[in-house]
């Protein structure tokens, strides 16, 4: 990597953050963050009114259990990986597809700074959307009396989500700078491979990100390591790779 990194990365961060928050992809992010809130409001009103109960295997599910399910199934198994795939792969790949990568490369800055700035912008953007969404779902679904006892769990869940966004984002950013069609592969990895590997016996599940996001698995160090290594590899790859833009 050549040249200073932090100053250019900061300028890239500010530029990319605005594009991400107010670009067309923001609609998807808004839906991903808003839909659970809407679902939470409906579920809470329905449960509070007693007009309906959610029954799983013949047992009633209370709102606290529903919040746990929302975190594990909706956020950690769908929203977090989906945002990671869509945004992570597009950070550089979109610039290549739209042939605007040249304008970034001709700037007097290290290519690694472009990747770092865009990645940090992605991280701030998705964290600023997903975490408040999950926090709002928590206060909507869980009765106030249960908020205190569950506070530690929610803090851990929010931390795991942030870590998941960071890891998926870095991994698919690397895929985005390395492969031509990263989105398809990313979707197959997240919704195909991870879903299958998690239910397979043995150690195969350790080859997924989702495994380390489970509350019973101490995966913080692994996730951090994957995120840092993937980001480093992405920065290295973009420095060395020649991008041939299709005419």
């Amino acid at each position, binding site marked *: 990597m050549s040249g200073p990194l932090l100053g250019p990365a900061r300028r890239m961060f*500010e530029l990319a*953050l*605005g594009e991400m*928050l*107010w670009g067309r992809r923001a609609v998807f992010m808004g839906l991903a963050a808003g839909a659970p809130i809407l679902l939470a409001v409906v579920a809470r009103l329905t449960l509070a009114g007693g007009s309906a109960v959610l029954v799983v*295997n*013949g*047992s*009633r*599910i*209370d709102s606290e*259990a529903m919040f*746990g399910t929302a975190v594990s199934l909706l956020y950690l198994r769908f929203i977090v990986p989906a945002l990671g795939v869509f945004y992570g792969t597009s950070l550089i790949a979109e610039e290549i597809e739209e042939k605007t990568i040249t304008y970034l490369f001709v700037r007097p800055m290290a290519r690694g700074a472009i990747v770092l700035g865009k990645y940090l912008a992605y991280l*701030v953007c998705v964290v*600023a*959307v997903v*975490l*408040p969404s999950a*926090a*709002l779902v*928590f*206060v909507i679904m869980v009765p*106030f009396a249960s*908020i*205190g*006892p569950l*506070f*530690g769990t*929610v*803090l851990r869940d929010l931390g795991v989500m942030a870590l998941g966004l960071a890891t998926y984002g870095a991994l698919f950013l690397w895929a985005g700078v390395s492969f031509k069609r990263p989105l398809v592969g990313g979707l197959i990895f997240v919704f195909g491979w991870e879903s299958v590997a998690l239910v397979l016996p043995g150690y195969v599940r350790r080859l997924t990100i989702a495994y380390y996001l489970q*509350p*019973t698995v101490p995966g913080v160090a692994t996730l951090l390591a994957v995120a840092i290594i993937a980001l480093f590899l992405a920065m290295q790859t973009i420095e060395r790779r020649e991008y041939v833009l299709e005419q």
Partner: protein
Amino acid sequence: MAKRTRIFLLASAGVLTAVLATGLVAWAGGAVAGSTTPDDIAYVPGNAQMVAYADVRQVMNSPFRDRLRQLDADNNAAADGFEARTGINFERDVDSVLIASTGRISVPTPSDRALLIAHGRFDAVRIEGLMRQQGAQVDQYRGKRVVAIKNDANDAALTFAGPGLLLFGAGDSVRAALDAKAGAAQGIGANTEFMALVNDVDEGTAWSVAKFDSVAGRSPLPGGIVNQLPPINWLAASGRIDSGLHGRVRAEAQDEQSARDLRDVVQGFLSLARLQGSRDPGYKGMLDSVMLNAQGKSVSLSFELTPAVLDSLSQGGAVRRR
């Protein structure tokens, strides 16, 4: 950075901060005021296998108790007998009671050392007099006056450890309780696993935490079925009593697989119960309130006995008696 981007980030941080502050306030409030673990737990020896607590005053004053009394108006003989032997009227004199056992509850052997710690209004002179009439001796132990009977048939001791605080049990148990309180022996408070379960259930009007081995023999289930259950380490139960009963039973299995197996077993029993009780509105109402959760090594089952369900059950019982 554009102004709208800055505003968005501030709004996002604001929402997150507000929610976290709410959670922090709720958590701190719970930590300060929510822990209802009685101070009496300091008397429980470290080798206790079971601890149970009841806020007798709250139970006695509850509409639920009135309703039960109406249902079972004739059954006062046992309470009268206890008053005749000890001079203590449970309903009138006792505010709260904590019972600890250091042995297998099912086997009444010398290893079964139950200890009763009660708060209330006690006539110390009368109670001591009754004990002396039965041959009790008075001793001093750790600065407390211990009244004890020990012969072939009886091993019982009693002491007033503080104003309105009665310790009653086998002589060794009472002395062990005084040792634990004085810090001369390890108390149950040092057992973090046990205390974590106590902290989980102590908001109930009545609660109990027990080593599963210690209570397995008292299970209403046949021994053959109990032996087939997945390995369980701890059982905890709590109940909040007002106009109804809101109960929760929690089992800590040895591992997550055992917890899943246990959940399936309980699920099976629930399905069977639903099948049998589907025609009885009382049982159906109770079974509809049942919630079964499994998380990690923990399996919990909660239920509610609302006044309507109690009415329905009592009507069903009356019909069957006729």
